[in-house]
């Protein structure tokens, strides 16, 4: 499957969105079964890619069916034609591995990001629902990677909880970076206690949101700093948080690039792998 390189600007206003990823050559599908959402990237019959995001619990409950002890995806109910090849990744991939090829999340994100950026040397930061991964790509190969420690602070779920706590829509929350309060607790639970303290002191919620965003960027920077590289590609749901993107760019000594649809990067990597699987099976 071909992979366009000059596509980073494709998500910019005015450019046609469907051209942002390389065109699929066959009816393939990539599925990233994450802790918060299931992301699907699929080739559309009429050409181009389609994307779909579903709550993981809803997907598990409504779209996975068990037929004679086998787990199947209910494509009809989803309104999609069954793909010729599907590759899965994510925390939930073990549920599907007896029926579909699976790849690790590291490989899925590497394949997706390398394809959309065309870079050979970069740091890939993926911040998802419950963990953070940093990959160091050198000479077009994954040379090394890190994942966060066991604590969920600094991940997507943490940001969601904090926004909910402040009764603020996540998109609004993600826009605050100015004049942040200091969030010292690295723990997701005690972090909330700290927020209460600020609210009771009469601090504006925008500053508190900025403080949370800054703490998330700080944790990511500590991981990213292990590698020296001028390019940072940022994917995963948290890459949609404008404040975290800005803070990373301001504080890191690298250029931050967020590809279009960053949350679907792993699913795209799976779809690309599905194309390879199909090519191997049908010479």
């Amino acid at each position: 499957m071909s992979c366009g390189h000059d596509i980073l600007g494709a998500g910019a206003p005015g450019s046609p969105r469907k051209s942002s990823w390389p065109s699929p050559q066959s009816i393939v599908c990539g599925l990233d079964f994450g802790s918060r959402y299931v992301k699907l990237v699929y080739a559309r019959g009429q050409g181009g890619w389609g994307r779909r995001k579903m709550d993981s619990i809803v997907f598990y409950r409504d779209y996975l069916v068990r037929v004679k002890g086998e787990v199947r995806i209910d494509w009809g109910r989803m309104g999609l034609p069954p793909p010729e090849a599907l590759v899965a990744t994510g925390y939930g991939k073990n549920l599907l591995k007896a029926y579909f090829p699976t790849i690790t999340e590291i490989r899925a994100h590497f394949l997706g990001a390398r394809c959309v950026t065309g870079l050979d040397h970069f740091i890939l930061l993926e911040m998802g629902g419950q963990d953070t991964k940093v990959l160091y790509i050198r000479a077009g190969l994954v040379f090394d990677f890190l994942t966060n420690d066991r604590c969920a602070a600094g991940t997507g779920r943490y940001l969601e909880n904090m926004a909910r706590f402040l009764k603020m829509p996540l998109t609004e929350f993600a826009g605050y970076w100015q004049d942040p309060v200091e969030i010292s607790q690295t723990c997701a639970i005690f972090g909330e206690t700290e927020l209460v303290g600020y609210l009771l002191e009469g601090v504006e919620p925008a500053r508190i949101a900025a403080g949370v965003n800054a703490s998330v960027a700080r944790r990511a920077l500590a991981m990213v700093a292990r590698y020296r590289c001028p390019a940072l590609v940022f994917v995963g749901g948290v890459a949609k948080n404008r404040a975290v993107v800005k803070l990373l760019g301001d504080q890191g000594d690298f250029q931050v690039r967020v590809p279009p649809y960053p949350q679907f990067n792993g699913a795209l990597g799976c779809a690309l792998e599905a194309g390879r699987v199909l090519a191997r099976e049908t010479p």
Partner: protein
Amino acid sequence: MRRSAPLAPGARVGLTTTIPVEVVLAAGLTPVDLNNLFIADPLALARVSQAEAAGFPRTLCAWIKGIYAVLLAHPEIQAVIAACQGDCSNTQALGEILATEGIEVIHFKFPYPRDREQLAREISALANRLGADHEAVARVQARLTPLRRQLRRLDRLTWETGQVHGQENFHWLISSSDFASDLTDYEQRLTAFLQEAEQRPPAANGRVRLGFAGIPPILTDLWPYLEELGAAVVYHEFPRQFSMPYESPDLVEQYLRYTYPYDIGGRLADLKEAVATRRLDGLVHYTQSFCFRQMFDQFLRDHLDLPLLTIEGDRPTRLDSRTRMRLEAFVDVLRP
């Protein structure tokens, strides 16, 4: 606290880490590596909780807690040789607590920085305390020479031909600190094992070759899982060190070249040699929660030019799903 009474012949003496075991054997005593006693205990996990119930903090290395609690279950061990220098300060505090509970604690200090004369004095002091004369120590050292050669042979069969599997390598090397408390039996079993292993066909090529850096992992199912992933563990940094990999007729020299109790520079040289000689594809740095050696993680990343995965263990449990995911991804990216 009792002091300096002679220990009964054959008495079991606990070791908190690898110390010159030749001296213990020359004194006619039975060495018991307390780490191995703890981890081999079917109740290992419960032992950690037991130590916490006795007041040991949650935020303390589980090996220390395990040693403490397993000693309570083994009242026959009335004396412990504690490495109060060259290991962690937690061991030092553990020694003090054990002493207040009536166990005789014999201190052994690996000099820091590495120093030949000081080490020679420490070994002499230990021999004096245990009642081992110089000739007896030399005899034991000579007695162990062929056995230590066999361990080196076993290690070579791990990385050269793959006839010895990673878990077997770990098992034999880790238990060489006290020879499983029965030297003759250990030697017989090792000889039989090597005879059997040498008949095995060499392992197929194409497996991902991993090394383990750091202290022995507390996790129980690492090796079968790595094998399932198609990886071969062909190097265990500290277990190999416990087996005294450099042959020397001089006991002081042997324990001077031993890297565990000294500076990170010595460890780095050993690791670099292993990476090159054993053709490692990647290194797994095992770190123990709350251990000072976690601080060296970035140092190893900065000084070793190969992919390095850091994993962390706390209690003696099976691998958690996150660590499994990370190991799977690591082996996957290293696969040729």
